[in-house]
């Protein structure tokens, strides 16, 4: 079983905490009162997505998590599983609703997503930073408004709802930043 020492800690290191893989977001070395050194880490649990802070005594060891990140193209959703494919080996991977979570609303066929696996099972899906989706529902809005004062909600093909400028009409394709859920521009 591979282990890491506290001196191996760095951003992105993945290790097991309470039987769940987690990834280090931030870490710092502290030595309160010139005594024993500790490592304070902020981690994200990779299955639940929860963030938490944790303190280790310097020199402690943790169990490495068998976590991999692979790039796969999104194929389709059969109602139970989301199917992805490695475009080089054509190997297919299926991720369940729990692993996909809120990301489902950003999945566009053929887009390359990052699938996080733990012991070879998908536990999380990260969409591309930008996706292009068609507007299927929105208020007609005012013609001539170009700056979008406040904007209006628009529903996209995947069910995602984003605020768009008033001039955007049903049937148009918009570019959205998946990290913030914000409208970036109109795709012509």
């Amino acid at each position: 079983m591979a282990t890491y020492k506290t001196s191996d800690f760095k951003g992105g290191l993945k290790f097991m905490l309470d039987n769940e893989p987690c990834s280090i977001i931030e870490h710092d070395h502290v030595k309160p009162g010139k005594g024993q050194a500790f490592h304070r880490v902020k981690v994200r649990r990779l299955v639940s997505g929860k963030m938490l802070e944790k303190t280790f005594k310097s020199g402690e060891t943790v169990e490495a998590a068998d976590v991999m990140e692979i790039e796969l193209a999104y194929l389709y959703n059969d109602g139970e599983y989301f199917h992805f494919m490695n475009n080089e080996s054509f190997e297919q991977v299926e991720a369940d609703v729990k692993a996909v979570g809120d990301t489902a609303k950003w999945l566009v066929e053929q887009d390359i997503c990052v699938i996080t696996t733990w012991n070879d099972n998908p536990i999380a899906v990260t969409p591309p930073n930008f996706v292009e989706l068609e507007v299927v529902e929105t208020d007609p809005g005012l013609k001539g408004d170009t700056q979008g004062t406040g904007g209006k909600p628009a529903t996209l093909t995947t069910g995602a709802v984003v605020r768009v400028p008033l001039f955007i009409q049903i049937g148009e394709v918009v570019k959205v930043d998946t990290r913030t859920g914000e409208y970036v521009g109109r795709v012509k």
Partner: protein
Amino acid sequence: MSEFNWQPSASFTALRARANVLNVIREFFAQRDVLEVDTPALSQAAVTDVHLAAFSTLFVGPGYSQGLPLYLQTSPEFHMKRLLAAGSGCIYQMSKSFRNEEAGRHHNPEFTMLEWYRIGFDHFQLMDEMSELLTLVLGSGKEQRFTYQNAFKQFLQLDPLTASMDELRQAAKPYGVYDVLEHEPDRDTILQLLFYVGVESQIGQDVPCFIYDFPASQAALARISHKDERVAERFEVYFKGIELANGFHELADAPEQLRRFKADNDKRKTMDLPEQPIDYHLIDALTAGFPDCAGVALGIDRLVMLATDANSLDEVIAFPTPRA
């Protein structure tokens, strides 16, 4: 490593502020007739403290064909105390100190330390002088002061000198650090982490905070108080989440100093740490006669962080170790 790592991590604005802080400090001590000294970075002896790791190297040259082990100093304290015993009078030094195994937002393996000693001062008088220096460099207001005991009582509702080990561990629960202390046998380690999570974040946010009269078990090189043998005449300075300085009414008792060094080495053996060569020059100096004095060490890089509102040492050190 990025292709930009040849460049300094600190801005020139920060480096100018740093130079200015050094000038202000030199002027401060010149006005008080405190002598600037320069002592070795390499010594044949090393600190015994179990929580300090010294870098070591080997001198090979005339007279030392087999090699002479040398240790980079973790602080200039031992050499400066030999100067004091030899009759230097009040002295200060700004120099590099070196500590292995330390790196982080507030730690770099090599750093600049200001250390000064005042003959005839106790730790209270030295705290007064520290206050003047901080006001001058940082423009900070009048500091808060708490004894270690009162700080615990106020912020953790706990007496650090009398609480049971179990009470101390229970107090860690609200701070999410119970698990790391659950099986911790060392009382001081528990106290130190409790102080960090429960006290440090509550003190010294607007003005510096001086904590004094540490538990005798954390005396390091400070005297035990005559008034209360449970505490040592040691103080620390905290400001905006940074541990800035550590001072002592200096231990002048040679046999007691030797006993503490040996006790450290005994503890090192139980922890599988290398025993360190005791500085017998220091013991001899104390035996010859050591003036009543107080001394303090202050991290210059951390002081510059505070002077420039920096978040990490990288912003005030030209080339931190990853770029060195």
